[in-house]
Every structure is written in structure tokens, then in C-alpha cells.
């Protein structure tokens, strides 16, 4: 469990020095205000893939940008400016990120009263990068897309079918979630966490709960830890199965697309039958979980999950042996290991590009501290590699669930949490999309600040770099192979 962090008034330059050293990875940059309203900047860095280190510094004026050192900092610093009005000197792209044209300049919701911000002009002022030359066309797509998916804007510059450049414009679903956490009682915050990214709601809930628990130094009963692991792995299975099906759907191979949708539904129905909820909402609370399994239920649940995973594995093998799938997936949307590591990419996308990052191994918490998790790795970084990672991980998750259900510890599943007190803590979970972190500061039993580092926020900037040279018709496929959450990114 991540309990105490080496946290110091370090000065931004010390943080930047740390980022310059080899074997460090920028995890997040975020702001906070202290009890007297002074602004602080926090740099969260993974050192040697084994230790999260946080460096904190008070801010009075502009600070030097970390983006020239590591491009992974680019969006974090833009968010820092939008939320706290902190200028980052030397940032190559200081455009607003969270707010669109309707938001007045110089209103920063984390430090200003933003409850009744007036609307300003909605005329377009946003400056997209212009690609010029003979035959270059711009194709704007979104925010509303053709399918049943979340909103976001994509601006393609193409010559014929070939994409030269893709620029993202997101944050259409920005809901001010981090601000919404402020002054929420610790027990209620989990409901906001569950609504950050609906399909990964259990990962968000567990990450939030672990942060609260480690802030108060509570240890969760082993049985609750085990059931949390089952929920996390089930969420990963459901997400990965749906992704593989959607990839087939995007190349018009509708039979496996419908078949995997069916397998996904059997797992959601199993969750309903045994846990009373399709997406495990309301199960994780600070202190443990709200629903236990009887011995008979354990066997029944295990049988359903195992059968679904085997069914999927057999179908997945047939899918990968289909020549039209190989033709569309192979060498499409390559994300090189070099670009992926510069942008700090995490999760299945990183593992498909040969970067071995997984919170379950690198920074284990809860029951993951006592078990070994196999991490599949592919190096090609194309759509096929990202599909294979998901197929392999589904089988591994099924194994973890089965193993845990067989050795479910006895005892209670919930311990009380103090409803007052001051503390702060960090917690990390490997969500289906990758490294998810919650950092909370608690004042008098209420959340004073909650920062969410979502894997989608980290991975979205990498998508445009997998596009150049591909044809625009392959974009839905490449986008789906990343499968990033818009709401998880926009928050």
C-alpha cells in the first residue's frame, strides 16, 4: 500500500531535475491550494517503475514548463493553467484545454468562485494547427459521432485517403468533477468517483476508497480485498471482451461482434445475479465492500465467469485466424515504443508497444501484494497487438478470479472509517485502461482536494501519433484499439 510519500517543499526546479534523470516517468502534474488559499504545484513521478515520488512546491508566479523535458507533461500543464491560473513558461502549446469558447478567460474554477460564471461568445476562437500544401484537405469530425459513443472533436488533415495530421479537441464532457469533490464527506465521494468513467466505475471506486483508507491508516479485511480484486478483474474482462468485439464491428465483421456482446452481457447478468448490480456500482465503499458472497454463490459465480472466458477465448482464436481480420489489424495504427514512452502512455496500449507497465506488479495494493500477475507484452504497437493484449489479459483475469474465489479468506468485509480528521494520501489501481491514481486531501472528514490521474487523459495525446500514413477509414479501428474514455479524460 502506498502510505507515506517523500513529499517536500522541493521547488519546481528540483522536480524538473528529477524528470531529467533516466528511469523516471511523469505520472501527473496537478495543483492544490493550502488552508490559507496559497497555490501549490505537485509533480508525481514514478522512479525506476517501483516508487511513486511526489514533489510539491508553492507557486507565486509563473513556473518553468516541464513539457520541453517530457512531452507527457503537456496536457497536465494546460489543465494546471485552466484550473489554477498557473502559467508555465516555455510551454509550446498554452491553449486552453478544459474550457471552450463559452468560458471567460481568467476564471479559474479551483481558485475563483465559479458557481455562476456567465456565458461568453461561442464564436470559434480555437486555433487548430493548419497543414498546408497541394491537395491537403481538412476533415472535421465530431463532437457528436455516428455511433453510440461519447463526444469529442477530431480534425484530420488528409491528402486523398491518407492522414497527414490529426488534432484532437476534447473536454466536451468536462463536468468539473475535481471541483465537485470539494467539501464532500469522505463516504459520499465514492459516488462521484463511480461517475467519472461509467465503464470503469469499479476501478475508480476502489482507487478512491484505497486513498481514503490509506489516508486514515485503515486496513481493509482480506475478504473485502479479495472481492475487490474479483470486481477489478471482472471489469477488465468485460472491457476487453467488449473492445475485441467492437474492433470486429469496426471492420464490418458483425458475427463475432454480436457474439462478444452476448458474452459481455452474460457477465453483466452474472454480476446482477450475485452482486445486485450490473457494473458493481455501490459495492466498494471506504472501509471495504457492501456485499458478500455465500459459499454456494462463490461456486456459481466462478462457473459462470469461467464459462464466459473460455467461450471468448475460443471465439478470439477463430477471429485471429480470419484472414480479413489479419489484413485490417496488422501494421495498422502503429504506436512506436519511443513515442509511447515519451508521452508516458500506460495500460494495454503501452504493453502492446513493448512497455512493461502495470500497477498490479509495479505498485501493488490490496490483494495484489500477495499474488503474481502475468503481464503479456507485444512489441509491434499495431491494432493487432492491442487486440492480442486484450485477448491474453482476459484469460489471465479469469484465472485470477477463479484462483481468488477458490481461496476466499473468511471474515468480515467492512470496517468503520473515521468521519473526521485531516490527512492526505495517494492510491493507484490498474484499471482496464491502465494506471489510475487518486490523490486526496482530507480536512475535517471532508474532501478538500481530489485529483484524478486517469489513463485516458494520459493516452489520448498518443492517438494522433499513431495516425499519420494510415487511411482515414482506418481511424475508427485505430481509435477503438486504444479505447480511451472521453469522460474519464475530460472529467
Amino acid at each position: 500500500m502506498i502510505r507515506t510519500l517523500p513529499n517536500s517543499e522541493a521547488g519546481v526546479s528540483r522536480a524538473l531535475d528529477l524528470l531529467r534523470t533516466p528511469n523516471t516517468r511523469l505520472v501527473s502534474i496537478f495543483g492544490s491550494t493550502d488552508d490559507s488559499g496559497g497555490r501549490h504545484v505537485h509533480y508525481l513521478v514514478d522512479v525506476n517503475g517501483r516508487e511513486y515520488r511526489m514533489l510539491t512546491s508553492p507557486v507565486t508566479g509563473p513556473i518553468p514548463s516541464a513539457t520541453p523535458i517530457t512531452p507527457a507533461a503537456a496536457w497536465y500543464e494546460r489543465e494546471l493553467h485552466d484550473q489554477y491560473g498557473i502559467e508555465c513558461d516555455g510551454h509550446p502549446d498554452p491553449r486552453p484545454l478544459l474550457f471552450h469558447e463559452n468560458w471567460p478567460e481568467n476564471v479559474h474554477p479551483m481558485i475563483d468562485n465559479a458557481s455562476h460564471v456567465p456565458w461568453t461568445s461561442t464564436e470559434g476562437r480555437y486555433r487548430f494547427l493548419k497543414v498546408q500544401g497541394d491537395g491537403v484537405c481538412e476533415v472535421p469530425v465530431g463532437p457528436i459521432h455516428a455511433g453510440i459513443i461519447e463526444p469529442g472533436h477530431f480534425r484530420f488533415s488528409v491528402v486523398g485517403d491518407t492522414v497527414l495530421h490529426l488534432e484532437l479537441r476534447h473536454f466536451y464532457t468536462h463536468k468539473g468533477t475535481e471541483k465537485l469533490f470539494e467539501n464532500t464527506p469522505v463516504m459520499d465521494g465514492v459516488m462521484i468517483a463511480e461517475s467519472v468513467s461509467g465503464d470503469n466505475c469499479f476501478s475508480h471506486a476502489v482507487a478512491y476508497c484505497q486513498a481514503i483508507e490509506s489516508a486514515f491508516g485503515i486496513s481493509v479485511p482480506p475478504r473485502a480485498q479479495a472481492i475487490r480484486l474479483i470486481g477489478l478483474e471482472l471489469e477488465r474482462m468485460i472491457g476487453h471482451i467488449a473492445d475485441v468485439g467492437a474492433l470486429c464491428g469496426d471492420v464490418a465483421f458483425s458475427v463475432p461482434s454480436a457474439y462478444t456482446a452476448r458474452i459481455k452481457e452474460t457477465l453483466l447478468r452474472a454480476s446482477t445475479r450475485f452482486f445486485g448490480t450490473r457494473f458493481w456500482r455501490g459495492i466498494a465503499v471506504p472501509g471495504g465492500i457492501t456485499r458478500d458472497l455465500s459459499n454456494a454463490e462463490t461456486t456459481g459465480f466462478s462457473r459462470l465467469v469461467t464459462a464466459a472466458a473460455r467461450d471468448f477465448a475460443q471465439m478470439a482464436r477463430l477471429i485471429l485466424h480470419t484472414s480479413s481480420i489479419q489484413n485490417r489489424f496488422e501494421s495498422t495504427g502503429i504506436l512506436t515504443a519511443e513515442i509511447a514512452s515519451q508521452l508516458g502512455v500506460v495500460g494495454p496500449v503501452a504493453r502492446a508497444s513493448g512497455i512493461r507497465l502495470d500497477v498490479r506488479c509495479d505498485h501493488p495494493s490490496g490483494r495484489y501484494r500477495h499474488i503474481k500477475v502475468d503481464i503479456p507484452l507485444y512489441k509491434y504497437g499495431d491494432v493487432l497487438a492491442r487486440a492480442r493484449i486484450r485477448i491474453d489479459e482476459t484469460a489471465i483475469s479469469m484465472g485470477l478470479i477463479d484462483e481468488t474465489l477458490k481461496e476466499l479468506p473468511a471474515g468480515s468485509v467492512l470496517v468503520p472509517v473515521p468521519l473526521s480528521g485531516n490527512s492526505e494520501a495517494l492510491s493507484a489501481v490498474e484499471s482496464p485502461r491502465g494506471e489510475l491514481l487518486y490523490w486526496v486531501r482530507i480536512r475535517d472528514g471532508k474532501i478538500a482536494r481530489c485529483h484524478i490521474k486517469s489513463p485516458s487523459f494520459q493516452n489520448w495525446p498518443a492517438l494522433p501519433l499513431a495516425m499519420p500514413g494510415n487511411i482515414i477509414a482506418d481511424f475508427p479501428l485505430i481509435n477503438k484499439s486504444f479505447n480511451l474514455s472521453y469522460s474519464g479524460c475530460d472529467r
Partner: protein
Amino acid sequence: MIGDVVERSLRSPKVLISVSELFSNAAGSRMPEVLPDLLTVEISRSVVAACPTSALQVDEAAGRTHLILNYGECIGCTRCIAAGNGAFRYAERVARCGVRKEALIRRWDIQSRAEVVQDDLVLSQAAERIRSLVGRALNIRQVDAGSCNGCEGEIVALTNPYYDLERFGIHFVASPKHADMLLVTGPVTRNMAAALKHSYDAVPSPKLVVAVGACGCSGGIFEGSHAVVGPVDAVIPVDGYIPGCPPTPSMLLTGIVQVLSPSLSPPRRRK
């Protein structure tokens, strides 16, 4: 090989759920249900205190004490079930899907331990006129106006072999210009308000709008955020509401079908 994929799929058992089993089924939605016989003033106060949104309220008008449950604000946290001392349980059926906003609200008189039933619970008159026009061939354009994607997951599930929305003649289409109905999720964010309005304007008349989920009905957990405009009806007119966080596929289907076919609306009960 491609043939193997098809063969395996053909060999799989049929999973389609019958209409009667689906209709208003709320399993897995975590929506609460009130057992009025067990309701007391004390229980009402404790569930109101436990409710994180304002879904539960006590109304003391004209000397009577009423407990109000607004399904449109309920995020299914189940705290009322824990605090309700037996007077609250998981709902097996929620029929209030695809209804007028007022019909999302149920009200019990605590002294007489009986539900206060309002008249004309189901739909607006405009919706009644429109459904006679579209009959049973409905094209839906789904718009995410800022949701957490929980509702999207369940809307996509409507097309899977368990629910198979197409058996009702209902399709999801790619453009609002092809749509009869907008199915809108999410609290409408500042950044999506203009796009939602443009989509609404692009749907040819007559058109239906259905607001989906606690966020779409009331703003849900995001109510009051600086980045959120409000529920769907803060931006465009809404004909029917489907509560839930997220609503299950069966609740969504109930809502969509209920907006469409008057014969399937639940019978009005009179006190």
C-alpha cells in the same frame, strides 16, 4: 477461418428475452421501492438524511406528512434500503420509464400509509400525437451530452442478442436528420450545450426527445457543477424521461416502447 466463426455462432443457444419478462424489469438497476405498510415518520426522516441527492424528501403540507421519491434524481446508491428498516427494498419493477417528468415522482401519505396517486401519469399530449404518426418504425439518434458513458454502455447493450431492439422496429441512426427521436444522456455540459441544440434543430418534425439517466433527468450527482448547464430539459424540450444510474437495458427498452405505444402504458390507478 471466417466459416468457423459463423459456425460457432450458429451453434450457440438462443438468449433472446421475451417482451413480458423485459418490460419494466429493474433487476440490477439498484432503484429502491417503498413498502408503504412499513413506512413511519421516523424511517422517512432517516432515509431523507441518508439520501446523497435530493431524491427523497419529506413534505409536510396541510397537516399531512408525505414521503416523496423522485426516481429522476435517484442514483441507486441503496442507502435508503440500508437505512429504511425494511420499508425500502430493491425494486423488481420500475414502470416509470418513458414518462412525463412529474410522473417520475411518487408520493406516499405516511399517516394513511398509502400512495398518493396523481392523474395523467404517463405522457405529454404532444408525445401522444407524435407516436400515432411514427407507429412502430422508430429511428433513434443517441446524443451523449456529457454522460460518464455508463448510460452509453447500456444503450449499446440494447442491440445485443438478449434485448435485440430491432425486433420492435427500432433502429439507431447515424445522423439526427434521419431520426424521429433523440435519446439524450448526461448532464448537459457547457461544452456540449450548443452541439445538443444543433442536433435537436436538425431532427425533422415531429420529433420526440427522451432524457436518459439520473443526470439526463435531473443533473444527478453533477447537479450544481460550474461546468454543467443542467438536465436535458434545461437546453431542449423533453417528452419522456427514463430514470436510473444507469438505467438497465430493460428500463431503457420499457421507456422507449412506452413513449411509442399507448397500449403498453401501465394502467392508471385511482385512489
